[in-house]
């Protein structure tokens, strides 16, 4: 050990005094934190104590240099927000070039701070550096904005402040842009959502750094625009105080600069901030609900200031419809008083915004929030008429920007007002190893994922083919609402959705779809990820869940969106591959492989049909009708429809057809029962083509007894039935004539085909003609994917019949301009041989090319 001199004793004494002073300050902050009061005031007191330590060290170190100097606090310390284990950032400026004496000064200042266990960030500059400030380091420039002189020569401090003030106008715009970029980059690290189940209260979206960024943007952007709007200072201050108290607790509990409010620390924070509730879970939920509300306030304030400080390119104010304007900030109301009085029209702002992929302006959101808080309108106030209800449903069609608009609706309270069941999952926490976001945020992320699926090479086409994609989004909004209550959330959620479906007046198809999707929303992932999907029985059972391919498509899309919204890493390419394969296998099972799966007399659905059969249908009649039909028939049609088919099949004779034509929503449904014979299917298609009907989808089924059931859903695009009072009679007459052989449909169609009205501009698409002999033991399955065209199905089925081939089962579907038809065919009661397939294929391809 070396000799001890007086200087060392002085230094040791100083350090002891500083250490004692620091211990006292930390004890005060710890006490305040334990009381749940580790906010602004406590942090400022803590900062002041550290100021005293730094000043004492500067005084002692001054003997090392004769230079004039200034020592300033910057960053969070400059703002007097010094947490228990935060770094302290110092700026030291000398009036001359930095030499050995100045270096000794720096050492004399920093070494004792390090000995006191401070993490010190320091910038050392000469005052001349501020004549031309280096603008390549925006973080340094931003830290200067919080500069707070601590010690040194008054004249140096004044020079420094003057230098910064005089040069700031040149670099302020630059650092404003840098701040925006840094903020975006920081948010992207948190996947741009504040609804993290274990949020970072310093850097996360809506956390303390955003409070600072909001104030800084307001400060820096003030010169860019006249009259920047204030960022709700009271709410921002309140949010900051709350976040500070939480962060103080985190530092205390972790014993280091830790800022993630983990599950474990949430319990401690709830206790410290005196949340009440019957159990820990409820207390934590109350804490986190407050956290998310404050974080949301901060995020909104930041967004508002950002739009003002960094405005988008100038846009002229445009009136865009009933009481709506498109302004710089987005869509807003032209007449605020009128808008306040008309809640049913608020959705128009969001419709206009989503159609232009721009936000709804803050003042419009604020108006909605304020008015809804005051009046607490019931859901019906937002959709008093059928038109309003339909508009709400149509609004939910997946498009870029939909989830952002839904988020705005959520934040201003409109989403919960229209769909009150969603309020139950607001800020709801799911505690498990997988979920990363609150239930409401997870829900909106699923919608965002659906938007992204639109451009997915595999699943995009599946999404674009959906007849009613808005039902997928509606199902996603409700798929997890059951988590708010006890019980199986899939079942509870489906029950909770019934109220919404009634309020919106959804038809039976839509109700069944939503009910099915909510109840089944976990099934596909469970089977794809946990079962052996190479096992045909697994695929068969899975496929049997669906009544239509539309439901299968919706479930795979819902599953992808749902799994992808659990956390950023949950939906891996590996899982996506498994889901795709299960989808394809199930789709093929439903379209290619269902023909061999014949109705079994003993199966439960048959028993149920028999048990509830009307008095006019005997057990024998029922059993006889069902015999030999594929099982899928029982899933495709409701019991009422099946009983109707049985009645239609009564007393049918050769060359007769019993049929019924019904209007169903926007489309028509034609059900034909007849005894099977060659060309029957193509003749019916020909009659529909003759009347200009667009066949949308349909099924043709043949029983073992030779009864053919054909069900077509078609659109009367030319309004033939509406414009011709005798149109339906004419249709009936022609159909009878063609089926019983009195009229030749080919002759009827010849004149039609020559009409210019019959021709349509088509986007050329290479048709696919594919034969499958693997999926069915009984049938050759012919799949045709081609550009839809008038009379296409007639020409295809005619070509098949011309080859002496029997059409036993048919699935017809149209997806946009694409027709997808699957025929189960035989010749002479057997599958087709290779040469027969080749000949038919050649004819079909030639015919399809001519059609296009």
């Amino acid at each position, binding site marked *: 050990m070396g000799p001890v001199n007086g200087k060392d004793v002085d230094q040791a004494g100083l350090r002891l005094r500083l250490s004692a002073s620091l211990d006292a300050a930390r004890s005060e902050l710890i006490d305040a934190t334990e009381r749940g009061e580790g906010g602004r005031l406590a942090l400022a007191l803590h900062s002041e104590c550290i100021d005293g330590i730094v000043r004492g060290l500067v005084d002692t170190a001054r003997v090392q240099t004769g230079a004039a100097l200034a020592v300033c606090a910057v960053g969070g310390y400059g703002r007097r927000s010094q947490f228990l284990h935060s770094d302290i950032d110092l700026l030291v400026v000398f009036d001359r070039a930095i030499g050995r004496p100045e270096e000794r000064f720096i050492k004399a200042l920093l070494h004792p701070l390090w000995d006191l266990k401070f993490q010190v960030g320091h910038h050392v500059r000469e005052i001349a550096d501020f004549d031309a400030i280096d603008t390549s380091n925006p973080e340094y420039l931003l830290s200067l904005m919080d500069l707070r002189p601590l010690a040194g020569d008054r004249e140096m401090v004044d020079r420094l402040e003057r230098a910064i003030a005089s040069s700031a106008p040149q670099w302020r715009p630059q650092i404003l842009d840098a701040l925006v970029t840094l903020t975006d980059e920081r948010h992207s690290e948190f996947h741009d959502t504040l609804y993290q189940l274990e949020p970072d209260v310093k850097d996360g979206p809506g956390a303390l750094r955003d409070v600072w960024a909001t104030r800084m943007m307001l400060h820096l952007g003030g010169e860019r625009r006249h009259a920047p709007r204030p960022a709700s200072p009271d709410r921002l201050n309140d949010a900051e105080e709350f976040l500070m108290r939480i962060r103080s607790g985190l530092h205390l509990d972790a014993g280091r600069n830790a800022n993630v409010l983990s599950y474990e620390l949430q319990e401690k924070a709830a206790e410290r901030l005196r949340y009440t509730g019957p159990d820990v879970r409820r207390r934590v939920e109350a804490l986190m609900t407050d956290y998310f509300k404050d974080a949301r306030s901060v995020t909104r304030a930041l967004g508002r200031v950002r739009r003002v400080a960094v405005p988008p390119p100038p846009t002229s104010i445009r009136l865009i419809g009933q009481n709506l304007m498109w302004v710089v900030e987005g869509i807003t109301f032209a007449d605020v008083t009128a808008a306040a009085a008309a809640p049913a029209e608020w959705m128009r702002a969001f419709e206009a915004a989503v159609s232009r992929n721009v936000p709804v302006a803050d003042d419009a959101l604020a108006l909605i929030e304020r008015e809804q808080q005051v009046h607490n309108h019931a859901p019906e106030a937002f959709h008093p008429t059928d038109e309003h209800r339909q508009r709400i449903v149509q609004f939910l069609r997946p498009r870029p920007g939909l989830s952002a608009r839904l988020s705005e609706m959520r934040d201003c309270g409109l989403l919960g007002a229209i769909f009150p069941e969603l309020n139950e999952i607001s800020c709801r926490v799911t505690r498990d190893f997988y979920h990363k976001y609150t239930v409401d945020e997870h829900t909106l992320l699923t919608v965002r994922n659906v938007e992204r699926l639109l451009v997915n090479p595999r699943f995009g086409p599946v999404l674009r083919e959906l007849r009613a994609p808005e039902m997928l989004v509606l199902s996603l909004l409700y798929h997890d609402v059951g988590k708010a209550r006890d019980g199986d959330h899939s079942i509870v959620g489906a029950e909770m959705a019934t109220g919404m479906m009634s309020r919106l007046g959804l038809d039976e198809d839509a109700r069944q779809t939503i009910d099915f999707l909510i109840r089944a929303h976990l099934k596909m992932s469970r089977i794809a990820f946990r079962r*052996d*999907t190479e096992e045909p029985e697994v695929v068969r059972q899975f496929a049997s869940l669906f009544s239509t391919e539309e439901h299968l498509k919706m479930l795979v899309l819902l599953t992808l969106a749902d799994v992808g919204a659990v956390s950023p890493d949950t939906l*891996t390419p*590996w899982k996506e591959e498994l889901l795709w394969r299960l989808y394809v296998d199930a789709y093929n099972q439903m379209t290619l492989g269902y023909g061999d799966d014949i109705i079994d007399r003993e199966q439960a659905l048959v028993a149920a049909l028999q048990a509830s059969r009307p008095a006019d249908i005997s057990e024998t009649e029922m059993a006889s009708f069902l015999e030999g039909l594929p099982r899928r028939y029982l899933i495709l049609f409701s019991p009422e429809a099946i009983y109707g088919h049985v009645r239609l099949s009564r007393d049918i004779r050769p060359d007769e057809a019993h049929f019924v034509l019904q209007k169903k929503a926007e489309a028509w449904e034609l059900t034909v029962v007849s005894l099977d014979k060659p060309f029957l299917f193509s003749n019916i298609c020909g009659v529909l083509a003759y009347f200009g009907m667009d066949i949308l989808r349909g099924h043709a089924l043949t029983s073992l007894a030779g009864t053919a059931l054909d069900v077509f859903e078609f659109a009367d695009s030319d309004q033939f039935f509406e414009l011709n009072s005798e149109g339906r009679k004419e249709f009936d007459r022609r159909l009878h004539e063609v089926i019983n052989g009195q009229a030749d449909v080919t002759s009827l169609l010849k004149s039609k085909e020559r009409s210019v009205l019959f021709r349509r501009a088509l986007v050329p698409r290479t048709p*696919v003609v594919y034969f499958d002999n693997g999926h069915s033991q009984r049938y050759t399955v012919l799949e045709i*994917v081609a550009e839809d065209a008038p009379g296409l199905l007639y020409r295809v089925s005619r070509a098949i019949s011309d080859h002496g081939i029997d059409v036993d089962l048919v699935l017809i579907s149209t997806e946009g301009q694409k027709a997808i038809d699957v025929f189960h065919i035989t010749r002479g009661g057997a599958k087709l041989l290779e040469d027969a397939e080749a000949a038919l294929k050649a004819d079909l391809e030639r015919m399809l090319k001519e059609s296009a």
Partner: protein
Amino acid sequence: MKLIKAIVRPNMVDNIKEALGKMNIAGMTVTEVRGHGRQKGHTAVYRGREYEVSLLPKMEIEVVVPDSSVDEAIKAIIGAARTGEIGDGRVFVMPVEQGYNIRTGEKDV
């Protein structure tokens, strides 16, 4: 010590975990992988168009066990993962020189 690496069908992981759990082997690493062995994938058809499924989704399980437990662990994995059909997977065994606990710094014995 030995590192046992098993490439198995995805749906067999729970069975294997349970089988190893009965041997008091609790620690394991499970990774989603894709690949093929003799089962070289197959061609699937969607709407008449073929697409290649050359790399099949599998799970890779890694466990480190004492030398004395290796045979038993391998038997447990094979017993739990086997269907008898092509595509059941593979088990590899590799020597491990040393292992350390990161939290405590202690060396595995």
